[in-house]
């Protein structure tokens, strides 16, 4: 763990974390969780097929979560020193003295736990990438240019991080990680574009040139889009837009959102929420998972949780406190306040793209969506806007590109309408999909599509 910060005597994060736990316990804290996070991110942002900005971020901090008589507080220090820790302890005590208890709080996990390293979450090659990232990006932009694209925009980003966690309940754990992420939106003209993203924790599985090729192909096919009618369509969602919807399902599975009435899965445990074709997993221990980590925010080893199995809702996402309240076990998804998914995985099926298209009499291929907003989270009523190539299907054949449509439907109706599942998955993370999601293309029947009034 590198040293970070300034001011006062410098210490290493492990000893300052231990000091914080000890001091806070001495002063009457019931639970203390300290996590030290150090992160270096480098980004190349490109616009009009050339680099517009290079960016780098470095941050190092100690996060603290403290419970004193069920009064809960979170804070952090950026200066990793004993004097900063003393200052934090005194502020925490002052703050909690005038706070109000959370009577629902049931404590943090009790350790010790044993951890296993997750495959393909750290790659020295990413830490050593440095300025050669420019060459990788140049290669990807070159692919787009050779594929008939007039201009491309996006980001090429790498992250190197380390984390250390210590709690007052006999938990101590440590992890490190690397990440690479690429997003490219390719334009043949202002109204003909395609978008693709890729991510990996290891460099050898990182495929920006493939993304450039896919984005370019969508853009080329999207030239001269025709107006289309509003109505009901069968829709083949590419992995990018379906991830956007699946992320909403993943968030709805958090018990925090269920309690807040921000979930269409509330009251549906053990009940059907999707078609037989829907199996959705959250897996914090997934090899090469973009947000995989050995432990959650209270130090519980991460695990694979089946959220929806063949259409039946199997579990909500919990931390130790919420699990105790509901008489169940933690799913290792702390979030000390809000249990959160790590990597959502929609189980593969056996359709290839051509077979899926043949299934459709009147439909659309949607390659991207954005601006998903809900009228009612509990009911699942939402709309979202396709962007980039949209393609009309008639009688099992792709007719051509169309434009300016909106999906105005219901999340549960979408899950129940899943009629075919592709056999090739893609890993999605990006501007519109903050929870890493792995999904194949999905065919959904009878989706309501609207458009601006004439």
């Amino acid at each position, binding site marked *: 763990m590198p040293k970070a910060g300034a001011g006062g005597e410098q210490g290493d994060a492990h000893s300052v974390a231990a000091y914080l736990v000890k001091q806070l316990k001495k002063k009457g804290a019931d639970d203390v969780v300290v996590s030290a996070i150090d992160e270096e991110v480098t980004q190349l942002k490109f616009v009009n097929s050339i680099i517009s900005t290079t960016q780098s971020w470095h941050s190092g901090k100690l996060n603290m979560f403290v419970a004193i008589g069920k009064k809960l507080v979170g804070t952090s220090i950026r200066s990793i020193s004993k004097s900063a820790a003393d200052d934090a302890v005194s502020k925490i005590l002052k703050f909690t003295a005038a706070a109000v208890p959370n009577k629902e709080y049931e404590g943090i996990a009790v350790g010790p736990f044993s951890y296993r390293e997750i495959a393909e979450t750290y790659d020295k090659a990413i830490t050593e990438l440095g300025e050669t990232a420019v060459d990788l990006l140049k290669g990807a932009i070159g692919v787009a240019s050779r594929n008939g694209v007039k201009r491309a925009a*996006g980001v090429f980003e790498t992250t190197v991080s380390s984390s250390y966690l210590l709690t007052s309940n006999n938990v101590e754990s440590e992890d490190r990680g690397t990440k690479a992420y690429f997003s490219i939106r390719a334009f043949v003209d202002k109204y003909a574009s395609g978008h693709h993203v890729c991510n990996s924790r290891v460099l050898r599985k990182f495929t920006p040139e493939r993304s450039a090729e896919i984005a370019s192909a969508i853009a080329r096919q999207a030239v001269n889009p025709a107006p289309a009618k509003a109505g009901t369509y069968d829709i083949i969602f590419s992995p990018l837009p379906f991830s956007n919807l699946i992320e909403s399902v993943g968030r709805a599975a958090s018990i925090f959102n269920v309690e807040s009435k921000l979930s269409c899965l509330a009251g549906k445990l053990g009940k059907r929420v999707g078609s037989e074709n829907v199996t959705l997993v959250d897996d914090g221990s997934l090899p090469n998972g973009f947000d995989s980590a050995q432990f959650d925010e209270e130090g519980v080893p991460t695990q694979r949780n089946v959220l929806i199995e063949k259409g039946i809702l199997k579990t909500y996402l919990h931390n130790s406190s919420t699990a105790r309240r509901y008489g169940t076990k933690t799913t290792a998804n702390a979030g000390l306040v809000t249990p959160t998914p790590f990597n959502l995985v929609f189980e593969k099926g056996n359709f290839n793209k051509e077979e899926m298209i043949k299934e459709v009499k009147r439909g659309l291929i949607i390659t991207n969506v954005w*601006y998903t907003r809900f009228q009612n989270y509990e009911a699942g009523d939402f709309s979202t806007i396709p962007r980039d190539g949209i393609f009309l299907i008639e009688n099992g054949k792709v007719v051509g590109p169309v434009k300016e449509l909106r999906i105005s439907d219901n999340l549960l109706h979408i899950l129940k309408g899943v009629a075919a599942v592709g056999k090739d998955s893609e890993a999605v993370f990006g501007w519109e999909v903050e929870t890493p999601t792995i999904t194949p293309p999905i065919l959904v029947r009878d989706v309501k599509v609207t458009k601006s009034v004439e």
Partner: protein
Amino acid sequence: MPAKSSVKPDDALDLDLAHFAIDYAGKIGASYADARLEATSVNGFVLKNGVPQAAGFDRVAGIGVRIVMKGSLGFACTNGLSRENVRAVVEKAARLTSAASRIGEKVKFSDEETNKAGYEVKQRVKLVDLSPKEKLAVLFDTEKAIKAVKANVPGRFFSMSDFYTEKYFANSEGSRILSKIPRTDFWYFITVEEAGRTAQRYWQYGAAGGFETIYEYKFPELLAGEVKATLSNMKKAISPPKEKVDLVVAPQITGIMVHESVGHPYEADRVLGREAAQAGESFLHPGSVGTTIGSGAVNIVDDPTIPGSFGYYLYDDEGVKASERWLIRKGIIGGLLHNRETSAILKTKSNGAARATGYDREQIVRMANTVFKPGSYKEDELIESVRLGVYFRNFMEWNIDDKRLNAKYTGAEAYLIRDGRLAEPVWRPTIEISTPKLWSAVDAAADNTEYHAGTCGKAEPMQAIPVWFGGPSLRIRNVRLSF
């Protein structure tokens, strides 16, 4: 230190670190450098169904340095406020930017005046003077007020934060700006249940100032009223009319419309494709300025200098002096929002729209407070002038495509207008309309300006920035609702 300023830096902020950063960048070959040294103290509280969640307090400080090396633009930041750390990140940025310059854009900044200034927003009730319990009391009072309404409200989620940001901007051209801005932010999410179905409402309030801004909004009364209106809507609402009708939209709707379909597409970086892979582009092109986009009743500005506003600033994050900017004047596009980079490309001057959410983000073109200018009518007069129509008090679901051409706004509290009077509530009337059609159909504005708060998203990594949007009630003639 800014010259001739009575605003002094807080003890913890070492302004010389910013000077060191830009000097050091110059020494290693940067032709331009700016530094933003910032410290933000924040307190956050959440009350979920009557139970306080973990509260948070923090002080986030760091420095962001922007350099031009070999003609290319680079940005680096650190929260380690030592010269050693600053030197390291500037060197890293220089290396990477030099390497990128092989396939990098050659950046130019418009020539702007050098400014030296200091300013601050006063607090009548200082954020630091109230205990967590005193702040939480607002949320408990709101909870109590909702409980007093005869309604089933199973979801009651309130979030309240206060921020105090001290920021020092310095660049290699000699600009030096020190600012101290406190802000408050409150949002709620409620779920009302009636006869087996639910309706939900979300809204946000924010301002620059002390805790008095929270008290002034009177959240207990406001939320109790919201619950009553939602319940009445659920009990009595009829379906919206199918024929073409006139609409009267209240300031909340006006606000979201000017933000989404005027503010965003007028951001010059979007027009130039610089946000293409993130928040998207714009239906406008540089030649759109001076062309007609709406009726003569449409007058829209963006103004960072509105006192007490959520998007308040007097100098932007490139040190350019802020002022009111006309986006649409009498239906004609008045201009775009610029930073120094976009204005250089389009051979104009920056109008002070460069903003970053914190020291750790690059400064890009943003709105501040986007407002439809008031007209001379009373809202009642607009309603009285409609034979058959719908009045939208507020909305829930909304979105717009990434070129800002097709928007959707679904009403929450809405009423039928019959023969010039508000009649029965209407269930989820939906406006789904193109931007030119919308602004052409607006034919009158009232004088009841309201400002509403939002946290606007753009850039990668995401920069969620405080803004106001607002204006008066508007009349929109002869449009069909969407179903």
